[in-house]
């Protein structure tokens, strides 16, 4: 292979980013940081899509990445609105404070 195309390395990097994001979701206590870790996991998945699209030579993976980005934007908007409502309700962003379903 004279022209390196980075598919293997990109797949491992995507796995690493997904793992770091998952660890952050478990370890962090701030709601906003947890949301950011979810974005990190989504980016790992996007990188895997692009790498597989490159390996297969088709563009379907790239279109999927486009849709993932749209959904991520919608998720961030709604998620942050929920965070604002929670902060107004309890005056904290600690995940452990939000342990009852009853308002």
């Amino acid at each position: 292979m004279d022209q390196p195309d980075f598919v293997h390395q990109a797949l491992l990097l995507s796995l690493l980013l997904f793992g770091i994001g998952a660890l952050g979701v478990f370890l962090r206590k701030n709601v906003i940081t947890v949301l950011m870790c979810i974005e990190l996991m989504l980016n790992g998945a996007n990188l895997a899509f692009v790498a597989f699209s490159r390996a297969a030579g088709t563009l379907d993976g790239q279109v999927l990445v486009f849709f993932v980005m749209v959904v991520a934007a919608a998720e961030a908007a709604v998620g942050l609105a929920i965070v604002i409502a929670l902060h107004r309700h309890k005056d904290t962003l600690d995940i452990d404070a939000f342990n009852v379903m009853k308002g």
Partner: protein
Amino acid sequence: MDQALFYASAALAVLSALVVIGQRNPIYSAFALIVTLCSLSVIFGLLGSPFIAALQVIVYAGAIMVLFLFVLMLLNVKSEQDAPGPAGRTLASIALVLVALFVGQAGYVLWHLAPGAARSFDASTHRMAEILFSPHFLYVFEATSVLILAALVGAVALAKKDA
């Protein structure tokens, strides 16, 4: 040259991702996440996807992260103070083991996958638009606009003062 750029951006992405989860102050986490997203954009470019690379900077680093920073500064978030107690420590080590197990297994599968060498690959914006607006994806594309509108209305309704 390409190889050096790839490994440099990959290392930068992983390091700043570690800063994202290791940092107690969420503002620093947000800035580290922006670094991760921008270095991922470089990697998308090296994988031959200029359209996705541009979207990554414009949509993720530009729009989504500004939204995060806006909310962080609006709510005046302080950094986490309390160290985790013994119960939290146990949960954290369980999470660490589970994630390590997952990464190990998936890494084994991915390493032995051996994807075929890329054939001719044209992911220019022109080709992307042709596929995105082909009958195959057109309706999905239109549905996403409804999704964005619903998210917009939902966000406004959720964050309203007397909700």
